[in-house]
């Protein structure tokens, strides 16, 4: 029951954030220097077309009125119509969202597969050779451009070795699974350094605590102490770190999708920018922010569920 109340409270606290997000997305078009309508349509636009677009964008109304109209449309699920495709922006986003979600999920899975074993080994063999090598990983990983890493993986495993497709992710489930490996690993290699660092630190804290000393003194094997006793407690704080960084990495999906030609919302955003398709850019920006809000919410809920000490207030 307390958990349900906590969920409800968290949902209510999202309302001002969502309003703020909608305002920023609305305001984007007002940042265009000069008259947005003539800038968007380019130098060859007729005065008639410019006037029509100004009316369509509601630019002649007062700012607050414009925002309320925008918000009203938003609540009805109306994100406007794409200048390039003519179809509804919401439709475009729902078509491309699955690829982005595939990418995020596979990126997170690969991150866990890489980061958890490395962090556990580093913490269990603290200050050993392996620990020192693993501790150097985050330093190198911090400045790794994900798009460049993606190109290098394409070159090695796609073009030279031919193990994975170099672009797209096919139409069947098997195609999806093969096509998502390299993009997922690209995301994981940029995300895991941060997770390794935090998980290693919290593992070391936990391994020094009294209950681990007790477990050891009872003669329980190292493997069982590490995996059975320590990892779960160390994981709790790392869930928060992972959540924050998935939110950050949500942004990187847009570059990774570009490199691997995955038909996700990030790729949609870049092609809309190059095509000056403003409603789609606005719609995708909004979707990205909502995704981050959802990931943060899920992180908090998981954190509260994993750790009974988290105050549900």
């Amino acid at each position: 029951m307390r958990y349900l109340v906590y969920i409800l409270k968290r949902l209510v606290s999202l309302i001002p954030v969502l309003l703020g997000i909608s305002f920023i997305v609305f305001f984007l078009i007002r940042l265009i220097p000069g008259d947005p309508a003539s800038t968007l349509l380019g130098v060859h636009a007729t005065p008639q077309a410019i006037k029509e677009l100004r009316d369509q964008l509601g630019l002649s109304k007062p700012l607050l009125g414009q925002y309320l109209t925008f918000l009203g449309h938003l609540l009805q699920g109306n994100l406007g119509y794409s200048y390039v495709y003519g179809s509804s922006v919401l439709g475009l986003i729902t078509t491309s969202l699955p690829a982005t979600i595939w990418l995020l999920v596979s990126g997170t899975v690969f991150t866990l597969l890489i980061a958890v074993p490395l962090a556990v080994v580093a913490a269990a063999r603290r200050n050993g050779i392996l620990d020192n090598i693993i501790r150097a990983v985050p330093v190198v990983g911090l400045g790794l451009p994900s798009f460049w890493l993606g190109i290098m993986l394409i070159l090695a495993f796609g073009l030279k070795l031919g193990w994975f497709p170099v672009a797209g992710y096919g139409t069947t489930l098997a195609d999806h699974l093969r096509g998502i490996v390299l993009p997922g690993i690209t995301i994981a290699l940029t995300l895991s350094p941060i997770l390794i660092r935090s998980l290693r630190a919290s593992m070391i804290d936990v391994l020094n605590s009294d209950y681990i000393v007790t477990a050891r003194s009872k003669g329980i094997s190292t493997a069982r102490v590490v995996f059975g006793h320590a990892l779960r407690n160390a994981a709790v704080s790392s869930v928060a770190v992972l959540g924050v960084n998935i939110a950050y990495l949500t942004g990187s999906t847009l570059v990774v999708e570009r490199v691997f030609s995955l038909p996700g919302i990030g790729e949609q955003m870049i092609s809309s920018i190059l095509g000056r398709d403003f409603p789609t850019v606005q719609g995708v920006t909004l979707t990205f922010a909502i995704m981050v809000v959802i990931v943060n919410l899920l992180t908090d809920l998981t954190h509260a569920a994993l750790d009974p000490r988290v105050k549900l207030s």
Partner: protein
Amino acid sequence: MSAVTTADPPASAAAGARRRRRRGRWNPPLISGLVLFGLIVACALCAPLLTSQDPIKQNLAQAFLAPGAPGHPLGTDSFGRDVLARMLYGARTDLQVGVLAVVSPFLIGSLIGLVAGWFGGWIDAVIGRVVDVVIAFPFLVLVIALVFAIGPGTTSIYVAITLVGWVAYCRIVRGQMLVAKEQEYAMAARASGLPTWRILLRHLLPNVVLQAVIFSMSDIVLTLLAIVTLGFLGLGVPPPTPDWGTMIQEGQQFILTKWYMSTIPGLAVVITGLALALIADGIVERANQ
């Protein structure tokens, strides 16, 4: 697991502590990071001395020369421009924009965080809500959307990164401020009737800004990555100005036959990122002493 330690005699313990402090001040990550970054900056500054080639001049007759070609140690690109010259002048562009783009978010964010933490109440609540909203957007997505809206060019990159980047500094400084304002020296300054601006800027700022400075080091890496990414997506520093991101993007089309075209500028980004990450680590170690 834990090492058995024996107690040192007091004299050698004091000497050991001094040694550790000295090591902490100039620790290996800090030294290696500074040396590496210094070398990169020196290469960028001395670009005209290191190469006589023009980074912008095209020569289609000399396109796609492999590294090691006479007069072109790193080869030429698809327009026949010298890759070494573009790398060196590209370093100038990216480092300059990367470092400068961190300055205004740092200043603005720290100042807002200072105000929010000190005054609390509704001011803090309003600033907190704004921070929550900006943080909800993935950094890169909002920067790209802003650069798109404002129009391409270096100025809009600065503006976009400032509009998005200040929140991190604001959060850090505000958090530090909540602790610092309860300290005795802050209360003493307040009790002595000093004007608020003076208490904030002279007494509190120097004590709360360290964490923000530490963060700014890794922030330079993230900003550099953002700038290179913008270049890769065709939204960065406008051509023909050399920039590492644009070079990686141009090389991607020829990746199978001319693998070095994307690889070399990418390595430059990685090495620069490594140097800055080492400096950041070194500063953290130094601050922990």
